[in-house]
């Protein structure tokens, strides 16, 4: 579906309604360890925090509110009970209210971007945001899929790897600068749209004490996948998780002949 914003100047309007996705992941500074049974990584007792790209997404939503481009910013997290803490961080940064789609522990390990995007799509049906901002990828699975899948499910335009979001020249659309392999690409997208945040979009703020206290009183609604009517049947099975191979020491050679000799030894050269 498409819903058209009837505004001449986006900045003068009531503002966009933004939905921001936050994922609770193992903190990026933690040294990740593989479980002895190779079924996954150790998460028990390990420090978790908000996915860094999602922090950037939250920051962008708050900034758009401060610039009066956005009117309301809602954070959503799909995850275990502890995801509530992640949502509190988002609220402490300036988000207005939060939605927690709680996933039971048994289904958590098998959760894939396809499921998350379906859950988010359902929430979009009722919340009707003008803009969804997600982190471009989560640092635990590095999938980089949820934003794109969500846009496809909703049949909305997508602007991924955003390093800048601003109103377009005629203020009827959003102008997004994207980080691509060749450099920067600037596109205009009509809203509603899905945008995913890249590293250089902004630098997230620290949550200030007054906001940390206020966050406790902001609404946090709970939902279940059943309520949303989404089937969490896994499409993939993880066979094993292993450490990357230990780097072997290299060897120095003294001459070209030595080099060729060594290459021959390894069967790399006939």
């Amino acid at each position, binding site marked *: 579906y498409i819903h058209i914003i009837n505004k001449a100047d986006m900045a003068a309007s009531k503002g966009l309604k933004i939905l921001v996705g936050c994922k609770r992941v193992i903190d990026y*500074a933690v040294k990740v360890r593989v479980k002895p049974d190779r079924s996954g990584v150790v998460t028990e007792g390990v420090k978790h925090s*908000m996915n860094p790209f999602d922090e950037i997404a939250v920051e962008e939503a708050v900034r758009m509110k401060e610039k009066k481009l956005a009117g309301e910013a809602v954070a959503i997290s799909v995850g275990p009970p502890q995801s509530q803490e992640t949502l509190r961080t988002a609220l402490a940064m300036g988000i207005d209210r939060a939605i927690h789609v709680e996933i039971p522990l048994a289904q958590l390990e098998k959760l894939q971007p396809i499921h998350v995007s379906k859950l988010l799509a359902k929430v979009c049906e009722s919340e009707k945001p003008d803009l969804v901002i997600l982190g471009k990828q989560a640092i635990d699975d590095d999938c980089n899929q949820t934003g794109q899948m969500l846009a496809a499910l909703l049949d909305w335009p997508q602007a991924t790897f955003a390093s800048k979001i601003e109103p377009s020249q005629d203020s009827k659309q959003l102008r997004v600068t994207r980080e691509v392999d060749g450099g920067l690409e600037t596109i205009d997208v009509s809203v509603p749209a899905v945008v995913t945040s890249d590293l250089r979009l902004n630098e997230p*703020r*620290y949550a200030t*004490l007054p906001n*940390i*206290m206020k966050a406790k009183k902001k609404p946090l609604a709970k939902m279940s996948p059943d309520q949303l009517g989404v089937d969490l049947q896994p499409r993939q099975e993880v066979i094993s998780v292993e450490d990357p191979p230990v780097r072997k020491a290299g060897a120095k050679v003294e001459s070209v002949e030595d080099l060729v000799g060594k290459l021959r030894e390894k069967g790399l050269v006939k």
Partner: protein
Amino acid sequence: SRAASLLPQLLLRRRPASAGAFALLARPASSASGGLPPLTTEIHPGIKRGAFSQLTDADVSAFEAIVGGDHVIKDADEVLSYNIDWLRICRGQGQLVLRPKTTEEVSAIVRHCNKRRLAVVPQGGNTGLVGGSVPLFDEIVISTSRMNSLLSIDPVSGVLVAEAGCVLEQLDREAASQGLMMPLDLGAKGSCQIGGNLATNAGGLRLLRYGSLRGTTLGLEAVLPTGQVLDCLTTLRKDNTGYDIKQLLIGSEGTLGIITKAAILCPARPKSVQLAFLGLDSFQAVLDTYRLARRSLGEILSAFEFIDSESMRAVKQNLGLSCPLGEHSFYVLAETSGSNETHDREKLDGFIESVMSMDGCATDGTVAQDAGQFAHLWSLRERIVESLLVDGYEYKYDVSLPLADIYRLVEHMRTRLDGRVIRTAGYGHLGDGNLHLNFTTPKFDAKVLELIEPHVFDWVRDRRGSVSAEHGLGLKKSQYIRHSKADFAVRVMAEVKRLLDPNGIMNPYKVLPDE
């Protein structure tokens, strides 16, 4: 992949400071002070070389036979770096550096030096701040850097046994792999060695919670000035059999022997560490916040540091670090460490609510939301020393005072030195009653030093404080020992020194005044 290549940049954006601010910086280029520091003998012309022998070729050969030619350093350029302290305020004239690998080698070296009456300086990470780890004249440097083996960690009892040359940060990493942590933490952790930590009874950021090395060191092994090996390396938690001689060596700053091994009791590594960073506008507010912290955070409080606005200005201007709070007269770091994240967050929430509702207390502050923010906020405190060095020359003071007097001293000295220094910075371990007071000038200025000393020490003495809370006396403060210790106590110390070091070869000119 592109994703993988961007992530390191993300990590760089919030650079953890713990990777040894000291290690990264190596030695400050001291472009402001123009190259090499002056010879210590020029700054202290009153100190005369002791009646020690001169180094001969025969001595060098003897050392080569003990440690091997590769580990006897004679080259002037290499030897120079061992002669200069981390603060670059001392430069000695040692000609020789020895790098033994085992206790037996250390023992043989010291035995030879004692027989020949050659003065020696034990040196670990050379991060000491009172000129205690470098030669003054031509003392031989005995470096423990090659004695860097971790000998054992017992995950049940928490006892870690290591050689003296192990770097503190590396020991902490090893302890972490067993769910433990080293009981001390200081800004120099990337470079300082455990032997030196013991020799100086190093304090640091978490003494408030884990106590001092005097409590957490279960045993040690050392080579005494006669060359004899003192084996007190027990891993027992309780052992009341006779005099506890290791306590003499702890804090002796290398003047009673060279520590070669240590057994440390490591606490369990906390599962949840939280950090609150507050902006306050009066020192009374700092004291009130501390009282609140002790009451509401109690058993989980693991650090309580304060920073004044001048110190914050230094890290911002000189190192380009950013502070997430606005301008305040004081900043406080309150850290908690515990075994249950939910509990600890609740307690921290309670503390914050009290702090915000208290009159005149913190209204500006933040709580670290992830490891990156945690490391950044700590760096604002841990890198103050480094930032002050950029100004040029730093005069460092480290005193213990009654809490109410701590900032009075800073204000008093700031007024006294107004116009003569670039800045007067006050910060420190408020929870321990320990103030770090520093002044900076572009170059060493004898007149400024005269204005500071002995006045600052007299001020501390008059309030029954300590003229050196944790840095030790080294060279720089040895003549002020009587400001904090009774004369008879000092004489007993001299007796002990004479007993263990009859020829006075072990790190002379340090700790005890020259008499």
